[in-house]
């Protein structure tokens, strides 16, 4: 100790120099160590596969055979591939059919669930989440049976009132509606709860003041609920866009006679299903990777567009 020449501050015991250095080092490193697990996992399961996909997309890549470098061939073929554009059209169509009604229904439901005089509010709010926690596959199978052409519940009811049976799975529009219903069914409760949480942050006094001023339910919804939900609406649009571009399980299970094409004329084959078909039934990994890259570009572009729109909307007063 007597040999120490470290200057000591008043009130602090002199620390041995080695330990001080170590503590300094630990303090610098520790925060990185704490966040490292995420980044390591992200690198292994996110970033590296992402980069590897870009690499594979440049090859004619047979997983158990040769990997032939073809440059951008996969992409130029993809742009001229009617199946790709068909899948893109289907994806957008199913996304619109599922998202628009779902968000509208969720808005109205959230407004109703937020009502002061609602009895058993907690019960109704929690029930909303049941479809969300149900397995997608189970939902898809049950809905397929309900919508079945010959033996489905829905067509049975249609038949009772004298209508022709509708073949949902075989027509383009029918299959899109069927998948959209499944997607909307799964997500509407979740979206409703998001809206509801946001609505509960709106002071009751505003509603009461509006009621005193003579505003009815519809006016309160339009002029109080809707404007206060704007940020969360933007959020749900962004997430449902990303989710909508990745619809897979429902489409895979709708037409089990021709599962990976979602039917004989690819009537409801989505982009992710097309990727799956090329990658895992045809084993054209290079082409499948190119589809993956195209999908990635579309998601980034749409997310960017959403961001742009949401920043443009924000300054406008509700």
């Amino acid at each position, binding site marked *: 100790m007597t040999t120490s020449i470290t200057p000591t501050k008043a009130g602090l015991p002199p620390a041995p120099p080695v330990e001080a250095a170590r503590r300094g080092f630990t303090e610098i490193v520790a925060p990185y160590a704490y966040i490292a697990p995420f980044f390591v996992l992200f690198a292994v399961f996110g970033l590296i596969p992402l980069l590897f996909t870009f690499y594979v997309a440049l090859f004619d890549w047979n997983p158990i055979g040769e990997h032939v470098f073809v440059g951008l061939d996969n992409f130029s073929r993809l742009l001229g591939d009617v*199946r790709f554009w068909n899948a893109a059209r289907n994806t957008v169509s199913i996304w619109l059919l599922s998202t628009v009604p779902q968000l509208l229904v969720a808005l109205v439901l959230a407004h109703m669930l937020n009502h002061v005089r609602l009895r058993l509010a907690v019960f109704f709010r929690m029930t909303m989440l049941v479809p969300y926690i149900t397995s997608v596959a189970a939902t898809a199978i049950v809905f397929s049976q309900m919508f079945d052409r010959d033996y489905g519940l829905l067509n049975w009811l249609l038949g009772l009132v004298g209508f022709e049976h509708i073949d949902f799975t075989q027509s383009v529009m029918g299959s899109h509606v069927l998948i959209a219903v499944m997607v909307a069914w799964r997500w509407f409760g979740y979206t409703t709860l998001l809206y509801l949480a946001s609505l509960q942050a709106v002071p009751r006094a505003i509603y009461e003041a509006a009621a005193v001023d003579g505003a009815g339910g519809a006016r309160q919804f339009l002029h109080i609920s809707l404007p206060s939900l704007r940020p969360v609406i933007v959020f749900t649009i962004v997430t449902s866009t990303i989710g909508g571009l990745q619809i897979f399980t429902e489409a895979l299970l709708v037409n089990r006679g021709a599962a990976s094409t979602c039917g004989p004329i690819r009537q409801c084959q989505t982009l992710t299903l097309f990727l799956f078909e090329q990658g895992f039934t045809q084993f054209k990994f290079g082409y499948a990777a190119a589809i993956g890259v195209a999908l990635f570009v579309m998601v980034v572009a749409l997310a960017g567009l959403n961001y742009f729109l949401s920043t443009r909307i924000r300054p406008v007063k509700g």
Partner: protein
Amino acid sequence: MKFRNVSAVVLAATAALSMAACSGSSSETSSGGSDGKSFEFWSFTGINAKGSAEEYKKIKPDVQIKLTEVGNAQETAQALTTALAGGKVPDLVLIQGDDLPKFVQQPQNFVDLRTMGADKIKGDYLDWVISQSTTKDGAIIGIPTDVGGMAIAYRTDLFKKAGLPTDREEVGKLWPTWDAFIETGKKYTAATGKAFIDNAGGSIYSQVVNQGQEKYYDPAGNLVYERSPQVKTAFDQALKAVAAGITAKQSTFTEGWSAAMKRGDFAAIAAPVWLLGSIRDNAPDTKGEWDIATIPGGSGNWGGSFLAIPKGAKNPKAAWDYIAATQSPQGQLDHFAQARSLPSTPSVYKDPKLTSAKDEFFSGAPIGTIYTNSLLGLKPFLIGPDSTTIGTEFTNAITNVEQGKGDPAKAWDAAVTNIKTAIGG
């Protein structure tokens, strides 16, 4: 957080690859050991692979079989593909006939079984079956474990109601040709107002197309699907059945198909031998109301599997011993007695054990005789890397017309265009 989800799905294709690569490094852990007596075996679910393995252990008690029932046939082939890409492979794997061509195209991934002694036994198997697992250079990468064999399963009660004969001999005589089969269907539909068969793709196209000498490739490996007469005939027959309105428009293995079978909404179905089990499980109440007659054209096959040894196998000898013991003509015959899987070895087709086999669910039909007869008329034809894709596109075009969405006059051209897109891309 969302970004992770995006990349996870976008990268589905490569995730499997990278995971396979990861597991490649820790490959020591789960192999059957290297004492030369144990081996790792990948099979399908639902075919009682466990039973076969246990049978083998009775003969060879010192052998350890590490059996994995990977999934259905297609899932097993997918898993094998990723395993081959990643380098960690089983010692023995079961591959379904439909999935075989893409592996035969890449024979460097498998042990040429001639080096193990397959040369000596290859004459035991039906020539058109073993030819499917033989490469252009003559290497044999798989031993056929069973074959499909085709017949028509039909409902005697429904035939009776329609005024048709019910005895299996007479019923077989109703349809020596596919034209006669469709005519019978018309009579049935006219009498009952109900569909005759389940669908045109499975019960007509897939059967007729397999009755020729050439399918989608010529013997030299050139694509001939556009001008192969058998393909065109099969396609036209299927469309004819659709136009006649005798199909229930239910795609095989869908919920509607199962429901229609239970309710008797179709009276006949082209049934490979392994489908009999599905009918039994699906519609148990129809026991005794089914019978089995010969298929129009007399021959046919749908399905069948092969045992292969991947090149990276640690215990190829133990795996081959298993093949040699269980896939001999006698071994396959024993397996038929237990599991009703049809032998691929014609030398046992006259064996009383096979000819005396009857199935009570199907009114005591002599299934061994009926099904093996359908195998003898078949000719070997080349199955190429795109055979499955081409078959799917033709079937899809027929289904599309059957479902009332497609124009029959344009269906052939549409199918050919789709095939060109699919195999060119």
